[in-house]
Structure formats: C-alpha cells, structure tokens
C-alpha cells in the first residue's frame, strides 16, 4: 500500500478520536462550576445584566445549540472568539505558537544532541564510572523539580553574571542573538529531564542490541567502533528512542506551564491555564482540540519515521 494511503487512513482514523474529544471537552466544561458572565462583569453586575451578557455571548442557548454552533465553526476551522478578551481564538493561539514551538524545538534538539551520544557511550562503557555518572545524572534530572533548576540557573547566569535575560521571549524576527539569549535558559532547564529520559532509553535500547551477532559481525569486518555503535547498533536501537523523542516533543508543544511561568514565556500552556481559570470556553476547547491534533500528528510522523530506521517496517 503506498504511504499516502496509509497516511490518509491514519488521518481518517483520527476523526472519531477528535469527535470524542470534542464532545467530552464540551460537556466537561459545561459541567464545571463557573460562569464566564460573572468573570466578565464582576460583583457589581445585577442578575439582569448577567442575563444580558450571557445572551450576548450565546451562553443562554440550549447546550445542544451551543454544541452544534461550535462544531459548525470548527468545520470551517473557526475557533470562535474568546469570551473574555473578545479576540479571535485563532489569533490568541497564533500569538503563542512561536514561543512554544521555538522552545520545544530548541529543547528537543539540545536533548537529542546530548542524550543520544551519552546513552550510546554509557551502553558501550557499561559499568564504568562514565556509566555510573550518567545514571546518577539521570536520577538527579528526574528528581529535581524543574523550577528549582530554573531559579538556580537564573540566579547564576541572569542575576550574578548578567549574561542572559531573566525572562521573556524574543522572536526570531528580532535576530538570532536575541532569540538564542532568551531561549537558552528555558531550553536548558527543560532539557535536563529529557536528556535524562532519552539517555536512559538510548542506553537500554543499545544494551539490547550491542551484543547481537550483527554487531559482532560488523566488528569482525573491521568497522571502526564509532561506526559499529552509531551506524549499526544505534540504528537498530532507534525505534524506542524515536518514540520517546516524539512523545517528548508533543509534551513540550502542549505546554510546560511551570517553565513558561518561571521564564515568563507567552506559550500555549499559560494560555490554556489562564483560559481554564477564567472559564473561557472557546479557548479551552480550541486548545484541547489543537493539543489532541498535535499528538495525533506527531504519532503519525513517528510511525512513518520508523520505516526510515527499520526497512522491515512497511506501510
């Protein structure tokens, strides 16, 4: 079957998943206590004014009508307007997309560049001090809360040394220097846990294959050790590593609220949390749909990427 049919089949298979997510989220939000009209008008509003605000926002319509209206908008790729700010939800998401994608991509790139060689090295030198040191680093990476690492790095690099800014995001349009200077600290902080995770996964996967016959054969043929490790062993260990990297990317895109707050990054995570706190239904609904779509897309890409590393996998 050509790959395109496989992709189409997978995309079609997501439709019921997304429909379920849409119905579930819509109902869950309406069952959650809270009234956007009260959030907007505050304590001074009379009952009559609240009624008028609900009417203006169509919140007084029957649930089914609200749901159908929303679905009709979604089909037209229109997420509606924020109940609170009145701005189009697509505009709000677009404002937050660049910081989120930037930090996610820089983080995952840094993590892969550090973790994969580290994992290969520790598998190769299993039981050595390098291996033990890397395992200790992994445990620390998993154990220390991200905000603790963040505050320590901010204190050192932003407050004491004044090399980097404390907070904020600079888009690439302002130049590579500003972009990197703002992205580096949050990316380093986020990458600690991903380095730990990917390095451990790489080590485990490499240990599974490093004693296989084909690795011994490669050595017997006279391949250099780096070629044996990276060309032969790593390629065969790539599937679980790829899965972890892909899932990590999806997690980073769907929002890392603590890191976004500590570094004051205007990302999708904060947009979602703020919308939940204000009961901004259109924004929450759109964010959950977008997040689900990101997961579906990344899983599809991971599945497709498997065949690049393992020719036995065909679609």
């Amino acid at each position, binding site marked *: 079957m050509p790959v395109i049919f496989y992709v189409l089949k997978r995309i079609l298979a997501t439709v019921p998943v997304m429909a379920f997510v849409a119905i579930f989220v819509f109902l869950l939000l309406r069952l959650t206590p*809270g009234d956007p009209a009260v959030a907007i008008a505050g304590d001074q509003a009379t009952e009559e004014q609240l009624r008028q605000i609900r009417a203006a926002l169509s919140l007084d319509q029957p649930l089914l009508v609200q749901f159908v209206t929303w679905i009709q908008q979604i089909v037209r790729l229109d997420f509606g307007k924020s109940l609170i700010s009145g701005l189009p939800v697509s505009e709000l998401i677009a404002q937050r997309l660049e910081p989120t994608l930037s930090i996610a991509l820089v983080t995952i790139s840094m993590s892969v560049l550090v973790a994969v060689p580290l994992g290969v090295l520790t598998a190769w030198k299993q039981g050595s001090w390098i291996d033990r040191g890397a395992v200790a680093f992994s445990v620390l990476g998993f154990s220390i809360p991200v905000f603790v690492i963040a505050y320590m790095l901010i204190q050192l690099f932003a407050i004491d040394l004044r090399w980097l800014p404390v907070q904020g995001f600079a888009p690439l349009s302002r130049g590579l220097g500003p972009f990197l*200077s703002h992205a580096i600290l949050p990316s380093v902080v986020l990458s600690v846990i991903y380095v730990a995770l990917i390095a451990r996964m790489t080590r485990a996967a490499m240990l599974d294959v490093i004693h296989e016959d084909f690795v011994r054969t490669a050595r017997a043929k006279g391949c250099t050790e780096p070629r044996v490790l990276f060309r032969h062993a790593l390629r065969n260990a790539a599937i679980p590593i790829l899965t972890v990297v892909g899932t990590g990317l999806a997690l980073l895109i769907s929002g890392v609220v603590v890191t976004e*707050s500590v570094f004051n990054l205007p990302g999708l995570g904060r947009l979602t949390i703020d919308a939940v706190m204000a009961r901004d239904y259109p924004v929450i609904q759109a964010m959950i749909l977008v997040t689900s779509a990101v997961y579906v897309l990344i899983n599809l890409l991971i599945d497709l990427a498997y065949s690049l590393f393992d020719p036995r996998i065909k679609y």
Partner: protein
Amino acid sequence: MFKIKRLIASAALASVTAAPLYAETLRAVMHSDLRLTDPVMASSYITRDHGYMIYDTLVAMDENSVVRPQMADWSMSDDGLVYTFTLRDGLKWHDGTPVRPEDCIASLKRWGSRDTMGRQMMSFVASMEPVDEKSFRIVLSEPFGPLMDTIGKPSSLVPFMMPERVASTPATEAISDFTGSGPFEFVRDEFQPGVKAVYLKNEDYIPRNEPPSWGAGGKVVHFDRVEWINMPDSQTAINALSSGEVDFLEAPMMDLLPILESNPEITIKTLNPLGGQTLARMNFLQPPFDDPRLRRAAALSFKQEDFLLALVGNPDLITPCAAMMGCGTKMDFAVGGEKIAAGTGQEEAKALLKEAGYDGTPVVILQTTDVPVLKTQPVVAADALRAVGFNVTSLPMDWQSVATRARNKGPADEGGWNIMFSYLGVADVMNPLGHLFMDGNGEQGTFGWADLPHLNELRAEFAAAPTEEARMALAKEIQAYAYEQTTYVPLGQFVSPSAFRSDLEGFVTGPAAPYFWNVKRAR
C-alpha cells in the same frame, strides 16, 4: 571558555540592541494581567487602570477628596437641579476629532446603566442634553447631593468619556473600538491578553495646568511608550526588576519585599495610601445567618488583626479599622465596629449563640484557593467561628467557582453558601451609595441579599441630603445600622507597596494608582 563567554555576552548585547527603539519606554508589571478592556462592562481593577491610561474623565477627585475639573468645569443652579458642564478647549479624541457634549452624554448614560452609584444617580436624572458645541447639562428630577462625587468617583466603575459611536454600545456588550481622549493611546495590534498591553503617548493630549493630585490635575506624560508585561511568577518579576528588565512592579509579593528592600537600585513606595479593605459577607437568606443575632455573633468572633497578619504578614502595612467606609477617608467613623476592630467580642459572641438557640446548623464557608489576596481569610474565619461554638464546613474551590456559587440563593447543601470573603479597594467603599455590601435590596441586591428597607431609606436620605454635614451625619447612622444588622464585616485595611527602579521619580499617589503620567526617568 573565553570565546564562549564572549559569544554569550554578544548575544545578550544583541538582545538589547535588536529591540525596537523608543526614546523612552517604561516597562511595568501590574497587579494582574489585562484581559477585559471595557472599563464600563468589567469592574476589575486592572481594567479600571487601563481606562485611566486611554480615557479621561469629566471631573476627578483630588487627594483631599475634593472633586476638581478635568475635561470639564461645571456650575450648579441654585435649586441644585441643573448641572451645566463646559468642556475645556483643545479636547480631541485619539482619531483627531473634537470631543463633543453628545459624546459625554452617551458615555454617562452607558456608565450610569452599570455602575452602582451611577444607577442611583441616573434615577434622579430627568434629562441630559447638549447646550452648545462645548457644554451640556444634567437636569435632575429632585436634588441628588453626591452628584459630583458620583461623576468624580475615582474607582470602579469610573465614568470615562468615550466617543458617542463607542458609548452607544450596550453596557452588556464589550466595546472593540478603544478610541479615547486620555494621555495614552492603546496599541491594539500589540495587545496580547495575558502577556502584554502597550500604550503610546498621546501627542495631542493637552494636560491641565494644575499639579497632579490623585486622578485630578495635569497629566503630563514623559514616556513615549508604556508596556504592561504580565508575569505570573512573583519571583521572576522580582528578578526582572533587579536586573533592570522591567522598571516597575505594582504589587510585589509581600513575602519577597525584604529582597528588594536590600537593593539600593530599587525604591519601595506605597502609591495607593488608602489601600484595600478585606471583608466577610454572610448570606441573609439561609440559616444560620438569616438570624441577625447569629450574624452579629459571627462578626464578634473575628479579630481583624488575625486576618490582616495572616494576609499581609507585615504589621507596618496593616490597619485594624472599624470604619466601613474606610479609615483615612472623610467618612472614617468607628461607630458600631469598635469590638470587631479590637477583636474583643468573643464572649459576647458566645452569649449571642446561646441567646439565639444556635442548633448547630453548619456554616458553609466558600474558601477561595487560587487568589493570594483571598486565600487566608476563610482559614482564619473557620478557626474563629469554631472557637465561639459554630459548626463550620469549609468548601475549597477556585475563585471562579466561588464567584458563581455566591450567586446561588439556595441552601448550602443545594449549591448555596453561608459566608464568603472578598476584597475591595477603599476607594470603592468610601461612599455608602457606591458600597457594594451596603445595600438593603434583598433578593434584587448584591449577593448575600440583605433585605433591609430601613438601610435603603437611610441611603435615600443620604442621596437627597443638601449639605456635606447632613451627609456625614447620615453616613454615621448608616454605618451604625449596618453593623447592627451585620450587612457585612470589615476585616481591616492594608496597603500594598510598589517597587520600582530608583531612577524613576514623580509617581502620583491615589486610590487607582499607579498612574503613568508625571513619572519620568531622572537624568
């Protein structure tokens, strides 16, 4: 290593030089993020502050609580029934068109349909009509003594002036045109709710000649651009101020103030000297607080100092205060609240419980968990109520759930409540007509639904009182009666200092501070 250092330093330098260049930019972290931009529809303080940036007011209250001309001067007829306002020369909207009397009338009508005091004022208004190109008059059906205090009120909802086309929007629909005539213009294209709001100096704004005083006087702008940057993390905001990435923090977390106090590059100053009043409100409709004796007992169980210390921590920033209309205001009376302010009423509370035959009906407390200024009061109150014999159940939930549940009139076990806690700026309680928790309108009134016709009669007398002396006497009577019926319980006053880079000077104080006029960078 040296190369790495140089590379990082270059990147950091580039991050500064690549920023858009404005002659003078002030970066401020406000107490909250701006999301709602209609200062008539929304009563949040950040929206009010946004209003002060881009709109102007007809008149404004100064630091002596005296109403002064701002956009307009006024005169009153001898019978107190006709007020004529005359706009000053050179007033223009941000789009360059002149401010007309029709704009002001439309603005007052929209605001008057929303604001608590405004609604009362409008019930006295027979007509509002233009007189000529620069003046208009308000004709009353009967005298309304606090008319100028109402139009000059400094806090939510402030009667900001908008063009007629904007002010024609129903007050229950948000405006989308942010044309004002104030000292700054709102940059809609750079607005990111929850992230950043940007204002540019209104070059056409002509300040008054008088020195600034609260929201009155000359609003001279020294910065070309003001950015409000939202920072959800308090420590990050402190770090950003210390490193000079931002210039001003409106309300740094009080626990973190000592960090800033030790920094010579930072100045700490209280810009809103009146501060805020924290309070408890009981539900008059449901037992046990449908019984005035038990409301009184609950109030007497409280000790203001306990609430204030739990909330603020620093004794220098708190004031136990019996005045329902605020300590430091012109209606600073202690009558009726002495024991609550002193925290000496616990024995009387126990006696009242006994006298009322309290049967152990649970007191359901709505406990806000996610707003720092509202988190501690329910915990302190639960302890105090239990100490005098109440059976207490606390329901922890986020503020949105509290705000919604507070509107449920049913019994506590059917989604209702018995007691909740709130916070108001003192500027919003300094007049009994505008005080949210000083109405007696029952189920038509503010949540809690105090049905007290006599309170409404006293307020009506206050509104019609011809002199300041008569109004003061009535305000005192209103407070005594409100304490007797426990319309609500003031839990004390506190101020929240701001912190800013020490090279800034000229901040104007006031009940809606910070204001961003008059501030400049010292050379």
